[in-house]
């Protein structure tokens, strides 16, 4: 059977600390909440807190699945890598293509949004608003070339930072992460202490409950606010002691973001009517902050600055995620080994960074040719994530049966022991519930997101054409898997990660298995 030949000696360096690993995820997920709050409240009205809590429960299950898998397999690649190990090359490719779509949109969408927040200051600097730059080009109307150029400049800065190295890139995340967490915490605490009216929240809940359709549509949007968990796993190969650190950073991220999302929506409904948030969808946190006594007077400019920062680092995680994902896919024969190269000086996958950032640039330019650039990008965002997450859940369940030997420093709770091939396997009940939950979200996205349901599958099809061409050219099977030596790789990964305790556990488990096989023979 064909086997992948990898001659590359240079590897990604392990530079990401505990805080860095956490902020990779928080940069992405935290920014989503910041943007999605107004959009979700516009549809779910008085039930916003409930919707965020329900979507958050599914998100927690996704998070727990990622925590288990990322700590067991601490390599770059995240969801698609787990899918490939559990379900084989083809499904690994499907998961990879889905998440790659999300990462490139992530770069484009959040860089656009970041530039949008910067435009808040435009009247003070240039004396005119951003809307005044919109022009018509033939049949295309409301084309804002200035905003588009700003976005492209931001993407260029991100390309440069990411080429220079993960240490520099991670440092930005770490620094901004501190500012964001402190600011958001201060807003929530000040808001609950000095502005929150529980009776107002109760009144909105009772009298402004949404219709079932709006409730469901809002729920599919709310899950968008939790996309980004993948980033921690993508950085696993560059994280110091990943099997120890990642369970901690993942669990912290899951609960921190959940607490913030529920806190902001609960606070919002207890301070302002939901219609206020619907009216200011672009800047909901700023509107909320403005309504808080004592700090409200600086809320506008500060929230705009904070929003720009958050969205900028969120875009940064998109660049990092796309490049690391493709680096990983190339390692396993899903795409060409040409993508599995790191720069001799910077130790970063420069080709991947440039190529996939360029795809984001194309997406940005095309979206600015539509009347509402952010709407166009946002509509496609949930498709890739919900498809990728569904596959990850299936892979998690399968791996419990096919690879019980890899030590799992963290295991999803709620397991039942069942007999399988003469041994006991922990069957993850919560994994099944999570899979059904995410599959429902995927169904709702396909049903309600008009652009996403066409652009998403079209992207997967486009990627499949490349995949089929490459696999045929190399003589690799299309739907079956290349022979991978997962055991050897696992030993190498744990050794390089300096996770010696897990390495010994793994070796003991394999030795025990081999002993049993000999006894049976």
């Amino acid at each position, binding site marked *: 059977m064909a086997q992948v030949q990898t001659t590359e000696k240079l590897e990604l360096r392990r530079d990401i600390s*505990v*805080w860095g690993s*956490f902020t990779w995820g928080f940069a992405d997920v935290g920014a989503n909440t910041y943007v999605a709050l107004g959009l979700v409240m516009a549809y779910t009205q008085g039930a916003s807190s409930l919707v965020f809590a329900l979507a958050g429960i599914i998100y927690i299950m996704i998070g727990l699945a990622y925590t288990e898998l990322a700590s067991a397999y601490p390599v770059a690649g995240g969801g698609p890598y787990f899918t490939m190990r559990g379900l084989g090359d083809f499904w690994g490719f499907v998961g990879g293509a889905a998440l790659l779509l999300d990462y490139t949109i992530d770069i484009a969408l959040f860089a656009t949004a970041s530039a949008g927040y910067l435009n808040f200051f435009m009247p003070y600097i240039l004396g005119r608003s951003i809307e005044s730059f919109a022009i018509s080009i033939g049949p295309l109307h409301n084309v804002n070339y200035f905003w588009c150029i700003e976005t492209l400049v931001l993407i260029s800065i991100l390309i440069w930072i990411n080429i220079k190295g993960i240490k520099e890139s991670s440092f930005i995340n770490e620094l901004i992460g501190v500012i964001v*967490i402190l600011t958001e*915490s201060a807003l*929530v*605490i000040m808001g*609950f*202490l*000095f*502005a*929150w*009216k*529980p009776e107002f929240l109760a009144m909105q809940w009772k009298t402004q409950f949404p219709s079932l359709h709006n409730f469901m549509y809002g729920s599919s949007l709310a899950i968008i606010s939790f996309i980004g968990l993948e980033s921690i796993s993508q950085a696993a190969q560059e994280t110091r*002691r990943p099997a*120890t*650190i990642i369970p*901690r*950073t993942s*669990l*912290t991220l899951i*609960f*921190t973001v959940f*607490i913030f999302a529920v*806190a902001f929506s*609960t606070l919002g409904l*207890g301070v302002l009517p939901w219609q206020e948030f619907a009216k200011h969808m672009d800047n909901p946190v700023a509107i909320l902050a403005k*309504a*808080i*006594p*004592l700090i*409200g007077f600086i809320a506008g400019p500060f929230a705009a600055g904070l929003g720009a920062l958050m969205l900028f680092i969120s875009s940064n995680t998109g660049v990092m995620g796309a490049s690391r994902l493709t680096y990983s896919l190339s390692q396993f024969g899903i795409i060409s080994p040409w993508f599995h190269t790191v720069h001799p000086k910077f130790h970063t996958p420069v080709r991947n960074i440039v190529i996939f950032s360029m795809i984001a640039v194309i997406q940005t330019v095309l979206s600015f040719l539509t009347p509402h650039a952010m709407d166009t990008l946002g509509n496609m965002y949930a498709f890739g994530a919900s498809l990728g997450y569904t596959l990850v859940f299936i892979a998690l369940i399968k791996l419990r049966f096919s690879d019980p030997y890899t030590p799992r420093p963290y295991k999803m709770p709620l397991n039942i022991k069942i007999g399988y091939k003469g041994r006991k396997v922990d069957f993850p009940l919560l994994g099944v519930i999570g899979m059904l939950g995410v599959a429902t979200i995927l169904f709702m996205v396909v049903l309600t997101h008009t652009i996403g349901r066409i652009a998403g599958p079209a992207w997967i099809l486009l990627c499949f054409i490349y995949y089929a061409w490459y696999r045929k050219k190399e003589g690799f099977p299309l739907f079956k898997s290349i022979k991978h030596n997962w055991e050897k790789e696992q030993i190498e990964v744990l050794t390089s990660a*300096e996770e*010696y*305790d897990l*390495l*010994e*556990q793994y*070796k*003991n488990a394999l030795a*025990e298995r081999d002993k049993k096989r000999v006894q049976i023979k």
Partner: protein
Amino acid sequence: MHVQVSPLGIIIAVVFFFSIGGILWWMLHPPPQIKPEVAKARRSVEALKRILVPTSGMPYSERGIELACRLGAEHQAEIVLTYVIEIPRTLPLNAPMPEAEEKANQILNRGKEIVELHHLPPVLLVERAREAGEGIIRAAKDNQVDVIVLGMRTDLRGAQSLWGRTSDILIRKAPCEVILDKLPESS
């Protein structure tokens, strides 16, 4: 904008502060890194799933049972209690010895009580052999044990060898790890 203070708001703010603060503190304090040599030593003990303890009913051998139980507690190890009836060379190995067998059962049942106090599964074995060491080794091989824990007598001054004959045979011929426990003579 008027300041609006509610008791529930204060409670939520405090809970929020401690939830976020607490979880971040926990995240930032991971356990220290384990060195390769330390990990190897630590994990080499993990495979102790069946422990054999020879018992003669003497206090030192019952102390050996207690030690074995503590050793096996983490992985719920099976404790194989073995009493060896030494048959004189003038008799065949299967010669009836009702008194010795009754004594063996009494001693094993006493040992079983110790094991059950630790909620571990006991296995009781009576072996017949010309020498105790020989019977213990056969039991260890037949039951594929991971380790033998032997409580030794405290007074070895009259013994022919350094550690006593049984211990000598175990150290030389045991098919698995052997742990000897000897208290100082004064105890």
